[in-house]
């Protein structure tokens, strides 16, 4: 049994490592795109079947966003990013529930040891994925903040003239703000990565603890991971939403 922190490359395209997590996340993205095309074609005024479920999910997400922003107009601005993050993250978290996790893959001899490169690996357990979403989230906060109040007002948050009213304190707080933006990226990506990677490790280990059919150990962990996956997706999207809200609110001087 071998668990690697980084995602295993399945094959190389002109020196570009196509990892299992890239394949999984691409599959998620593609299936979501196909699904939305499919739904878009069959959208009806009087909903039925799958449209009901989608409307229910989107409406509850929108209400959640509303409860934070307090205005429908702003909610509509934030909603696409928040909802996309939620949907993508929850789906990539739940990939680890699929059977075959960490067990079905390519066998390889590495440093004299037999190593399996699994096909299925939750895309959230790759730092590349979580970091990319975190980057998008934090950069969207900056961009939406600038469009909401203009670059001049927005930059006041970070760059404060040391010879004006709060003097050096204001400047120092500005520097702290910049650091906190960077910290947001780190905390976003490592929180999700850590949670899901740990969950995956637990699931893989619990698979090998008892032999054959006596192994009921993964079952409680599967439920746990279902819950953790949901919670992490919610945290990621809610934090993004709150940062967006804070970023679009002018600072009182």
């Amino acid at each position: 049994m071998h668990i690697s922190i980084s995602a295993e490359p399945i094959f190389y395209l002109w020196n570009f490592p196509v990892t299992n997590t890239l394949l999984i996340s691409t599959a998620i993205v593609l299936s979501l795109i196909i699904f939305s095309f499919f739904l878009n074609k069959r959208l009806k005024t009087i909903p039925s079947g799958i449209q009901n479920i989608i409307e229910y999910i989107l409406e509850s997400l929108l209400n959640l966003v509303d409860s934070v922003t307090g205005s429908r107009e702003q909610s509509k601005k934030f909603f696409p990013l928040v909802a996309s993050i939620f949907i993508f993250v929850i789906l990539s978290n739940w990939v680890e529930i699929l059977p075959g996790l960490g067990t079905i893959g390519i066998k390889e001899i590495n440093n004299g040891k037999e190593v399996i490169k699994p096909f299925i690996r939750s895309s959230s357990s790759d730092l590349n994925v979580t970091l990319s979403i975190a980057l998008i989230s934090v950069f969207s906060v900056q961009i939406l903040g600038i469009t909401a109040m203009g670059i001049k007002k927005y930059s006041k948050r970070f760059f404060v003239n040391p010879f004006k009213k709060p003097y050096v304190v204001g400047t120092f707080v500005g520097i702290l703000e910049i650091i906190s933006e960077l910290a947001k990226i780190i905390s976003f990506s490592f929180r999700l990565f850590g949670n899901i990677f740990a969950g995956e490790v637990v699931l893989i280990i619990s698979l090998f603890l008892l032999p054959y059919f006596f192994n009921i150990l993964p079952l409680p962990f599967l439920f746990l991971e279902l819950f953790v996956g949901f919670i992490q997706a919610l945290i990621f999207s809610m934090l993004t939403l709150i940062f967006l809200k804070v970023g679009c609110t002018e600072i009182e001087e």
Partner: protein
Amino acid sequence: MELFDKLGVDWRLLIAQIINFSLLLFILYKFLYKPVLNLMEKRERKVRESLDNAKKIEEKLLNTEREKEAIIKKAKEKELNIIREAEKKANERRDNIIKKIEKETGDLINKTKEKLRLEKKETINEIKKEIAELIVLSVEKILQEKMDDEEDKRIVEKIVNDINNKNL
């Protein structure tokens, strides 16, 4: 940066994932969120409108009903008034007529009585005259020879006077 290397962070993969997610974001926004939210909003507006309309119609109906009742009430009152007035008028008229008739009858009776009295008086007078003449005639016949005209006249007058004095 060595830490990131150990954790498997590769800028090429990072960019690939960013493109992946941005694509997802764009497509979902264009084909899922926008149409679905628009649809929901439209439907909500429609439902609210139709509910409002229903409320308005109900209110109107209620108002009409109230108006109708008021009109009916008014008409009934008017009707009652008319009937009452008519009754009053009829009563007055009847009373008037009765009074008039009574008066007329009374007058007629009185007149008739008076007439009868006069007639009676006249008749009595005539009868008296005739009786007196008769008596004179009979007395004349009886006393034809014994009295001259002058005497006769005097006696007759005296008798007539006596009768008149006695009877009246």
